[in-house]
């Protein structure tokens, strides 16, 4: 026997045994719908594009830990059909160019069917074209720009989109505090400009005057000049389109300048650090959040127990959104198998999915609909506020 025919014989033998295994499998599972699905590899790759290092490392850790808790739980319960989930964590440092590189590595791996991430709107916009070409479905636990989703059939977000949550804050200020006019301070970045625009459009439609609208640069610490100008207009309520560090400093300085009215904050402020930095001056500040471990509601207590057991600490917001995203992916795999074309429609079909703190649905535009909590700074922590 020459070398060529030996190889051929070996190949035939392999083909034969593969056929036998396939036959055996199809007999043993013939009563399951899995037969109609595109089969999955023994290990289904799930990419995680997260800022593991860099200034957003804390957020990145929530992605990787949340994903790991979910995958361990899924695999311990037998995986998806007969396959196990396998995480491929790639660090994008919160940088769009690194996110593209990460997406390319995942796209070139034929075992990767879905991605968790990237974290920000900028990183997501950069990575989406690469993922789209490979038809990989991606869910970002933290991005909130609706056009990312509506313009890309394979992309989803887990937090409420900006168009949905933006108006909630001025609405709350008017409904709970009876404000007749509002003042807004916002951070000068893409997010700050976008959310302010949404709020102003909402207020204009309702004939609520915005008497002052001021801006600061990320990293500023002194806001007294802005606040002095704003408070001169005697607003009924102050709205914070800020990040938590600056938000806390702004409240402190506004109180020092004699402002005693209500302050309503976007969800970007609702972190324990806001209260640590603001001290007693932030008491009474109200805002909304997806999740906060200190809330004493039943699903939150359960989530705390689950994460305490798995990672030894209480979960943060993106632990929860990442975990939920992974569970939604699992359900999609169960429904359609490893079929890149069908996975995204399976995710889009998510209706009343029992998320860790409440039901999650994707609406007709594939944007998420979910419960949020209204909270108020009280006695040094966030507590449920009226309206929740």
């Amino acid at each position, binding site marked *: 026997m020459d070398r060529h025919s030996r190889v051929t014989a070996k190949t035939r033998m392999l083909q034969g045994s593969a056929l036998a295994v396939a036959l055996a499998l199809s007999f043993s599972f013939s009563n399951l719908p899995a037969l109609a699905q595109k089969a999955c590899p023994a290990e289904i790759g799930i990419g995680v594009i997260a800022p593991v290092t860099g*200034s957003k*490392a*804390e957020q990145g850790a929530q992605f990787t830990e949340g994903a790991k808790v979910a995958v361990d739980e899924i695999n311990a319960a037998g995986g998806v059909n007969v396959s196990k989930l396998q995480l491929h964590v790639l660090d994008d440092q919160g940088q769009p160019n690194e996110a593209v590189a990460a997406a390319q590595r995942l796209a070139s791996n034929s075992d990767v069917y879905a991605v968790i991430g990237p974290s920000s709107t900028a990183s997501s916009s950069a990575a989406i074209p690469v993922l789209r070409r490979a038809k990989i479905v991606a869910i970002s636990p933290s991005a909130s720009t609706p056009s990312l989703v509506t313009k890309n059939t394979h992309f989803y977000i887990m937090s409420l989109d900006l168009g949905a949550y933006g108006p909630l804050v001025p609405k709350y200020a008017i409904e709970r505090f009876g404000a007749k006019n509002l003042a807004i301070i916002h951070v*000068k970045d893409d997010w700050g400009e976008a959310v302010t625009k949404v709020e102003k459009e909402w207020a204009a439609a309702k004939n609520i005057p915005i008497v002052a609208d*001021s*801006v*600061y*640069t990320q*990293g*500023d*610490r*002194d806001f*007294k*000049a*802005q606040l*002095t*100008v704003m408070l*001169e207009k005697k607003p009924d309520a102050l709205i914070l389109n800020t990040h938590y*560090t600056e938000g806390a*400093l702004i409240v*402190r300085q506004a109180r*020092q*300048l*004699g402002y005693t009215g209500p302050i309503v904050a976007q969800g970007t402020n609702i972190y324990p*650090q806001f209260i*640590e*930095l*603001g*001290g007693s001056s932030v008491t009474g500040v109200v805002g909304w959040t997806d999740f906060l471990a200190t809330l004493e509601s039943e699903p939150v207590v359960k989530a705390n127990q689950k994460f305490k057991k798995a990672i030894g600490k209480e979960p943060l917001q993106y632990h929860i959104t990442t975990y939920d995203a992974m569970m939604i992916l699992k359900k999609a795999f169960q429904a359609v198998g490893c079929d890149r074309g069908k996975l995204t429609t399976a995710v889009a079909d998510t209706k009343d999915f029992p998320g860790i703190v409440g039901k999650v649905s994707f609406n007709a535009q594939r944007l998420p609909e979910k419960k949020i909590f209204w909270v108020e700074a009280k006695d040094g922590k966030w507590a449920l506020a009226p309206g929740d």
Partner: protein
Amino acid sequence: MLEQQIVNGIALGSVYALIAVGFSLVFSILEIINFSHGSLVMAGVYVSLALGLAAPRLGFFGVALITILIIAILGVLVERMAVAPLRNKGAHRALALVSTLGAGIMLEALAQLIWGGDVRPYPLSLPDGVFTIGSARITYTEVAIVSLSAALMIGLQLLIRYTRWGRAIRATAQNPTAAALMGINLNWTVRRVFAIGSGLAAVAGMLMGAYYNYAHPSMGFAPGIKGFVAAVLGGMGSVLGAGLGGVTLGMAEVFGGSYISFAYRDAIAFAILIIIFLVRPQGILGTLNQEKV
């Protein structure tokens, strides 16, 4: 509103002024710019934060004294490691700018390594309270910042004018070679200047920490740049100039923001500075033919 904005500008400017003095002192004697100065301000915040948490019984003043001492030593270390070797080898002065910038970045990374990269509240606070003058509300902390900055700058000016140390510093600033021939130890004079400048950086840091209730490893960078600008604005090498430069910059920020646009607050402030430099290139109190300190 005008009165309140003047208060805001003076309070903001006083911190810049205190930082500016450190730049000015070092420049006057070595003609180099110590770009680690902003990081020393940050180090002052964190060292006092750690001391305040570890030994609350020390009280504000105990913590402040120890912090000033530690940061002064740290400043001398920066000089020994990043400035003196270059000077001894006769390297160009511009190199010291790079090496001190490097030292500053190292300090920042070190702080991040020890205390983490997240913002932290500052545990020490000055008495809480507010009083009003006209339509302006002034906090006790603002009073403390302005009066302490002013007192330290006046004290430093007296030290430089009327003590042997001060005379040595002035002599070295005017002519290092002649000063050395008169028996003044250049190395010790330089170390003293770094120690004093860094001690002031520590005070600026603690005041910032108490005023804003906030600590972060990169918090020294922007004030460092502003302090440097204030020093140049006031006239490099002049202590009182640094004070004036700081307050001018603070006012430029507050009023530029209020009357033009907060979106370009820094850009407007710096544009105002460029105009001042076009009129007085030597700075407010500087002289073109430098007679420094």
